[in-house]
């Protein structure tokens, strides 16, 4: 990271801190970059990241597990997510029967807390007043290996998750994104949505969820991070006490070896539902987050969709063809997509919106973009990263994604990588990825309501 935007690690730390003075033998200090200090618990492989930010008396504790819907297959799609829900149902230390349910304890502290599941990872986090960090650490350590995972909890929770799925089915955007991934990926598990297929949500057994837990929930498959107002020695002592005694997994964590072969031709799908507004979605196959083209694809995302003056906004919304436009250069662990979603203004033929998006993509590939456009897009991304540091939970969220798709150094390097993207890079990646053979084109079309 450049010095002008270098991460400030808090007023108390201005004089620099010794690398590992008085570090417990239980920890190995690994490295430090951009204010983030990495440690490893020697006995079990848990990775620990510490980032001090003492401006407010608040901290975010977050544990990321390297397991997501990418690790699922037919029959247990959605298992990672359903398991995440069951992780709130209790452990011997945090038990609803004793009035100490995880959520109740955190709520009473005023914590902002939740857990989320995505393609490549599951994370559990709590932002708390900094004098309550200990409770957050105890909860996460307790449920790393101690979750009850009872069938009597799964049964009512399954219908909760099924309603979450049903809510998603009400949203044209979610329907399109799910159908897009299902069409663009046939072999790789990005094919199925993180929420799972309905029949799998309903059918998966508690035993299968428990098996999932026993395969993936171990300290050597996790990263614990603490961001905010804390003293390093105190934080490490608490982490050592609660996580240090958990053994590593007996078996190695299984790797995903399935990959998606190259796409050899445009794919199309249509969804028809009773609705008033049509949507269109175009997605091109791209690369894994670690690939050197990722920063250029991110900048291209902003050139096309980053505000009122971005190209697709000018071409679609200023012209009254679409109501809005959303550009998503997905960054995932395995090769992903570059997507454009737009609700079509009623009265406009949806095909015109598709044609316009394709023409704009082709224009960037053929002619490139101006230096001013590239500079604007780079500045927007750099500014986003700086804004993020205003609050500990946003840093935790970004660091979570970085760990899931690459590693934390990737997060630290990202602003520099973005700053180095040139107009030549933008034209090259547009020409490389905006090709018809890698395109999946989706339409959400209104149909007439059934006669009453």
């Amino acid at each position: 990271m450049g010095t002008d935007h270098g991460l400030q690690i808090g007023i108390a730390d201005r004089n620099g801190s010794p690398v590992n003075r008085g570090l417990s033998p239980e920890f190995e200090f690994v490295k430090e970059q951009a204010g983030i200090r990495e440690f490893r618990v020697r006995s079990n492989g848990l990775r620990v990241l510490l980032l001090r930010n003492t401006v407010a008396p608040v901290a975010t504790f977050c544990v990321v597990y390297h397991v997501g819907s990418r690790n699922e297959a037919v029959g247990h799609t959605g298992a990672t997510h359903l398991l995440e829900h069951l992780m709130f149902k209790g452990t011997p230390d945090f038990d609803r029967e004793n009035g100490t349910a995880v959520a109740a304890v955190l709520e009473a502290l005023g914590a902002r807390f939740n857990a989320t599941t995505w393609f490549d990872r599951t994370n559990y986090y709590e932002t708390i007043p900094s004098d309550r960090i200990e409770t957050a650490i105890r909860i996460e350590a307790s449920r790393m290996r101690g979750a009850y995972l009872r069938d009597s909890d799964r049964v009512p929770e399954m219908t909760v998750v099924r309603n979450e799925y049903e809510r998603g089915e009400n949203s044209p955007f979610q329907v399109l994104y799910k159908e897009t991934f299902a069409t663009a990926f046939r072999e790789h598990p990005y094919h199925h949505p993180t929420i799972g297929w309905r029949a799998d949500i309903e059918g998966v057994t508690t035993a299968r969820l428990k098996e999932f837990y026993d395969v993936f929930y171990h300290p050597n498959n996790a990263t614990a991070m603490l961001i905010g107002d804390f003293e390093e020695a105190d934080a490490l002592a608490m982490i050592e006490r609660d996580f240090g005694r958990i053994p590593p997994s007996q078996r190695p964590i299984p790797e995903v070896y399935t990959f998606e072969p190259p796409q050899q031709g445009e794919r199309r799908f249509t969804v028809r539902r009773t609705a008033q507004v049509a949507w269109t979605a175009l997605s091109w196959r791209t690369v894994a987050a670690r690939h050197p083209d990722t920063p250029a694809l991110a900048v291209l995302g902003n050139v096309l969709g980053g505000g009122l003056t971005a190209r697709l906004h000018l071409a679609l919304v200023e012209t009254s063809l679409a109501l809005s436009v959303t550009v998503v250069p997905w960054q995932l662990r395995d090769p992903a997509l570059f997507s454009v979603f737009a609700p079509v203004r009623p009265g406009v033929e949806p095909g015109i919106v598709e044609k316009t998006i394709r023409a704009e993509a082709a224009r960037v590939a053929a002619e490139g973009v101006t230096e001013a456009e590239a500079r604007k897009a780079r500045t927007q991304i750099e500014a986003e990263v700086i804004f993020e540091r205003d609050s500990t939970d946003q840093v935790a969220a970004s660091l979570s994604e970085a760990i899931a798709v690459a590693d934390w150094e990737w997060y630290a390097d990202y602003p520099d990588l973005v700053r180095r993207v040139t107009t030549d890079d933008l034209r090259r990646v547009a020409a490389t990825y905006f090709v018809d053979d890698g395109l999946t084109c989706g339409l959400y079309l209104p149909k007439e309501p059934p006669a009453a």
Partner: protein
Amino acid sequence: MTASPAGAAARRGKVPFEQAVRRRTLASGARLFVLENHFNPTVAVSGSLNAGPLYAPPDRRLVAGVTAGELAKGTTRRTKLEIAEELESRGASFSIAAGSSDPVGVDVAAAALSRDVEVLLDVLAEVLREPVFPRDELEKEQMRLVGVLREQQDQTSVRAFEAASRRLYPPGHPFHRRRAEERIAVIESLDREELRRFYEERYGASTLILVVVGDVDSDRILDGLERRLGSWKSGPPADVPKPAPVAPAPGSETVAMPDKASADVVLAQPGDLDRLDPEYLACVLANSALGQSSLTSRLGVRVRDTEGLTYGIHSGFAATHLAGPFAVSLTVKPESRDAAVGATLEEIRRFVREGMTVKELADEQSSHIGRYKVDLGSNGGIAHAIDAAVYYGFGISYLDEFPALVAGVTKEEADAAFARRVDPEKFTIVSAGTFQQ
């Protein structure tokens, strides 16, 4: 960057906000507040003025929202795209909008890197003082708004809330939402003269509040805002005409929408609680125990956690300068609706009859005090909290006093205040979705 004695100390609770926040009131009435915080090179702006739908004609409430939305669509100096370019090329954000739940205020929210703060304040003053409401921009916006409104009509939550509002409030009431086709007709009939007129009548410095928090020099910001806004006309006084109270309208309604996997249910009644009510905090604490959280409140524990009937269930008072509805909302698989509504009503009846437990109150108090600290963990969060404290007339000291005010609420007060305002037998119940006949 230098150390930040005032801002950081206030966030850490060492120096009271009352002392740390610099302020200035202009002759025109505009109230300006700055809190320095040099930790991160960013700045957040939060502000408001009284120009919301309450002040628009009762049959044309949406004029207020469209006027606010069109302010940045062109000024005497610059076009919409020139203004946008100025902000977007710096990664800055800026919005002025009429709030969806507060009929009184128009909210300003902006953020930039601190090196760009002067540019941000230039844009802010320019769009507030010199909008021209270009005709072609309004025409585009009319077409877009009609589409957005149709898109919203595809959403079960919107349809349930709107139908409930029509059963609870008479036409013309600021909380009454007219039917989509009526609103579309109003949108299509708008012209720039109507927006101009509303702008001339309602916009001015007398009710303007601006709060700037971040890596800035407070004197420079206060002087700079005075230079930009000092000569702006005062505009109308801060009167908030209160609509006549409405009686509950118990009953139920189903909005049929085909092809919806999930249905939305709203249970609502006039809440009779505004933000200035001395019992506001008592009611909010009671409501938290009942239904603020899908995971831990009574409704969440019963309807979600125990019975698995919903992914999300929430209750709350819409309390601003006006007393808005008390509403419970939940999503359900359509076949589960009756069971979910039955369980919800049973819990509310029990809650009103028996009140909260001593432990529930203690947990809610510590929750609100802790959450308050967490929310003050960012520049944007602090700016918003200061803005709200001034907007409701409490003053900056409210930020310092808030924890003690929460801790001072007793169980008897909370139980009685809630029971006075929520009658489990008087709900209007509206569901929207795909139901078997």
